[in-house]
Structures are given as structure tokens and as C-alpha cells.
């Protein structure tokens, strides 16, 4: 089996438009959640989100590109530019023939759906732009990324709701580990902060109207974010041979299905995924210093996740740090695992554990060290990143310090 390392990272999200800006915000415990600036916000009862503000597509893309790139594709390409530049890889010849793109997104071009439904239903138009379909399709971002960088290997999109990007990165990891390819571009992207996107979530009545406070007593729900996280995964010897800087090693991955309920999480399903990822990575409980939690800030997720972690880690659960950065950037849905992987890399590389901000009071049902409100310095050798989706689909990645 080949070893798999990360040699490039890129992002755009509510905390920053690059990895350094995002990590700085996480270190400072800054909150990227605020009032939504979207059309018809006055008709929403949930009016906050982790929105990418001060963003003008025309600063980055030409007119021909903008007619084809939904916001989730724009975010993907901006994050990919940063990641691929950092990796220093140029995709040509045999490398390009086998290197591909696996991305996660739950909704794809939701803004494009929203705009065009408005046009035909609300405004009564009988004609839409000819590129609506190629703009909104879930694989648009993966396809444009492959075109932009000449990536000709396996390329597709994974849609498993809030686990999408962890499932995607798991696929990329498996492909390199098995020797199929020496490099993959992977991660995820989401942008559903538009009227229809927020309205749909509102209906479920699990959204907070004021703040995302994971693990805190009195938490009242999740807050949606948007953005992308993109990474270059590379075979270890290939990266070493060209003297690439290694950000972290991906050492394990596991996925499970609860097979029980379409929205309520299951402790067993989550625990089986966490345990299997550690077994895959050959990590013992005491090897793991930090868990980046799914930590949505809903009553149900947070207590179930803490119970699952406590089950898997036993006594070591008390020595473990576990935080949810969703408190800062919001829930990036299909892109959330990718944005959160940045906190894992920061923990391993910089020895800084991103905090769970907005934390007010301990909840006896979440009695773990959730790194409340302030980042902490700590040397950790191995970390996990949890994602537990609606539909009961769980995906956990394990990383080690390079």
C-alpha cells in the first residue's frame, strides 16, 4: 500500500479567502457568522449565516466563465488555485493521465436553481439561459477543475449531504493508496445561502436564529455557511522525490451507514466510523490528540457525537481535545469536511487547536474537552475529522503529522 500525503491546501469561506487568512481567524477564534446579505432576506425567519462577503466574481473570472460558473464552482476554482500553486505540481503526461478530481457537494448549483425558478415561476418568463443545466449540475465544479488543470484521471462528485467532502477525500485517499494514481485534487464546495436554500433548511426547524454554539448548554441549532476547501493529495514517494512540502499524512478513512433514520443521528453508526478509521490508520486511542468534530450545534448531533467519541476512546476521551469550527465558519454542508480539514492540518503542523467559540455553559451530555472559546497550543501527532450526514452516512478521516 502506498502512503498518501497532502501537499497543497486552498480555501475560501466566511473566515477568509485563503488558507493563511482562515487559519489566522481560527487561531483568534473569530466569528464569520453574521447577518445574511441575500435577496428577500426579510421573508426568512433565519437571517444569519457564514457568508463569503466582499466577494465579486468579476475580480476573478471573465464574463464567459461567469455564465458557466455557479458560485459553488467559483469557490472551488479559487480554492483549487491556491492548493495547486502550493503543491507546485504541473499536470502533464502520465501524471495528468491518471490524476483526477473527486469533490463533495450536497446541492451543487443551488443559486442557479434558485435564480432560474424565480425567472420562470415568479417573473413568469418562459425562457432561461442556455447554460442553466451545465451551470447547476453537481459535477460542474469537478469538471471545470479538471479542464483548468488538465486532470484526466477519475473525476466525479460525491453527494452525501454533510459528509460529502469527507467521502470525496476518502475516495481520493483510496485511489492513491491502492496505486491507481500518484495525485488527486479533492475536497468540497457548497453555496446554498440563497433564499430557496435557506428557506428549505428553515422548514426543518433545526436552525439557530442567533449563533452556532456547539456542545454548549442551551445551544439552539445549526447555522449555514458557504465556501470550499480543496487539497492536493499525493503519493508519499512522489512528493518526497520532488522535494515537495508535506502538510500532513492521510493515514486512515472509514465510512458507515446508520441504517436507522433519515435525520436523527445514531451513536453506534458514528462510533463504528470513528473506530474503523482508527483501525484503518493503525492508531490507538492514546495516539489521537485532537478530533475535529462534526459539532453542528443541534441538540441531537452534539450529544450523540460526544457519546460516540466517549465510547470509542474510553478513558482517553478525557485527555482528548475535540472542537467544532462550525461555530466560526458555519456549516458548509457538502464542503464542510474540507474546510474543517484545515483545522486538522493546523493542529498537526502548527500545534494550534482551533476553538469551539460561542461556548457559554457546559452541557453534562457533552462532557468532553471542547476547547471552549480560545485556541490552545498543543503538540498532537494524530487527529481525526468527523462528518455525520443526514441520511445516517458517516465518514471519518485520520491524519498524522508529517
Amino acid at each position: 500500500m502506498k502512503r498518501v500525503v497532502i501537499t497543497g491546501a486552498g480555501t475560501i469561506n466566511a473566515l477568509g479567502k485563503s488558507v493563511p487568512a482562515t487559519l489566522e481567524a481560527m487561531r483568534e477564534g473569530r466569528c464569520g457568522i453574521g447577518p445574511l446579505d441575500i435577496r428577500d432576506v426579510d421573508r426568512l425567519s433565519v437571517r444569519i449565516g457564514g457568508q463569503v462577503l466582499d466577494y465579486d466574481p468579476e475580480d476573478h473570472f471573465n464574463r464567459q466563465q461567469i455564465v458557466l460558473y455557479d458560485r459553488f464552482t467559483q469557490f472551488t476554482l479559487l480554492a483549487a488555485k491556491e492548493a495547486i500553486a502550493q503543491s507546485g505540481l504541473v499536470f502533464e503526461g502520465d501524471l495528468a493521465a491518471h490524476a483526477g478530481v473527486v469533490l463533495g457537494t450536497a446541492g451543487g448549483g443551488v443559486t442557479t436553481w434558485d435564480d432560474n425558478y424565480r425567472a420562470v415561476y415568479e417573473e413568469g418568463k418562459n425562457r432561461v439561459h442556455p447554460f442553466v443545466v451545465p451551470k447547476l449540475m453537481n459535477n460542474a465544479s469537478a469538471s471545470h477543475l479538471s479542464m483548468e488543470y488538465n486532470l484526466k484521471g477519475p473525476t466525479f462528485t460525491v453527494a452525501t449531504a454533510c459528509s460529502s467532502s469527507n467521502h470525496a477525500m476518502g475516495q481520493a485517499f483510496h485511489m492513491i493508496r491502492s496505486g491507481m494514481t500518484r495525485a488527486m485534487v479533492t475536497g468540497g464546495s457548497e453555496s446554498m445561502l440563497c433564499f430557496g436554500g435557506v428557506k428549505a433548511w428553515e422548514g426543518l426547524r433545526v436552525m439557530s436564529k442567533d449563533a452556532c454554539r456547539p456542545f454548549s448548554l442551551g445551544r439552539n441549532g445549526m447555522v449555514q455557511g458557504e465556501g470550499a476547501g480543496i487539497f492536493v493529495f499525493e503519493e508519499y514517494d512522489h512528493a518526497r522525490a520532488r522535494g515537495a512540502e508535506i502538510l500532513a499524512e492521510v493515514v486512515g478513512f472509514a465510512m458507515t451507514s446508520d441504517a436507522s433514520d433519515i435525520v436523527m443521528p445514531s451513536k453506534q453508526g458514528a462510533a463504528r466510523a470513528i473506530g474503523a478509521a482508527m483501525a484503518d490508520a493503525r492508531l490507538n486511542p492514546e495516539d489521537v490528540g485532537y478530533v475535529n468534530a462534526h459539532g453542528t450545534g443541534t441538540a441531537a448531533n452534539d450529544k450523540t457525537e460526544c457519546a460516540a467519541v466517549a465510547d470509542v476512546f474510553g478513558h482517553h476521551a478525557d485527555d482528548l481535545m475535540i472542537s467544532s469550527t462550525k461555530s466560526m465558519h458555519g456549516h458548509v454542508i457538502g464542503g464542510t469536511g474540507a474546510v474543517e480539514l484545515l483545522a486538522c492540518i493546523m493542529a498537526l503542523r502548527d500545534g494550534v487547536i482551533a476553538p469551539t467559540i460561542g461556548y457559554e455553559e457546559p452541557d453534562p451530555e457533552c462532557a468532553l474537552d471542547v476547547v471552549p472559546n480560545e485556541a490552545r497550543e498543543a503538540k498532537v501527532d494524530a487527529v481525526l475529522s468527523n462528518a455525520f450526514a443526514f441520511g445516517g452516512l458517516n465518514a471519518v478521516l485520520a491524519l498524522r503529522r508529517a
Partner: protein
Amino acid sequence: MPDTIKTQVIRIIAEQAVVEPEDVRMDQTLDDLGIDSLGLVESIFAIEEAFDIQVPFNANDPSASDFDISSVAAIIGAVEGLVADQKA
């Protein structure tokens, strides 16, 4: 006989519980009727649509919401209150 708030709410609850309206008793809880958290959220949606009201309810902590869902009678009372507030 015109529909009262009570008969309409009972009809919504009965539909979720997949029982006949006459089999819904006032002292029953949603749990008794086999209505889970998804069924509850759907019932509240149906109530909002039927009476054109906003029901203050957050699934994260149903007990902290102002809307009393402890029994069929409590739900009917709460809806009557919201409809009266709306007319006031």
C-alpha cells in the same frame, strides 16, 4: 357544522398518526400516538398552513419553545391562543 380549530388540529394529528380523527383522545401525547420528531415538525407545518399562523417551535429543544406540545389538548389550546393573538 363548520370546522372548529379543535377538529382541524385533530384531523392534522390523526393524519400524522395514521388513525381516524375519532380515535384521537385529548389526553394523549404525541408519543402515545406514535408521532416522532419528523412527524411533529410536519404537523406544525400543517398547522401553520391551515391557520396561517407562525408557530414558535425549535426542534432543538421542544420543551423550551413557547408552544406546548405535551398533549393533544395542549396543542389545541396553544393553536387557539395563536389564532386569537393573530385576530387581536
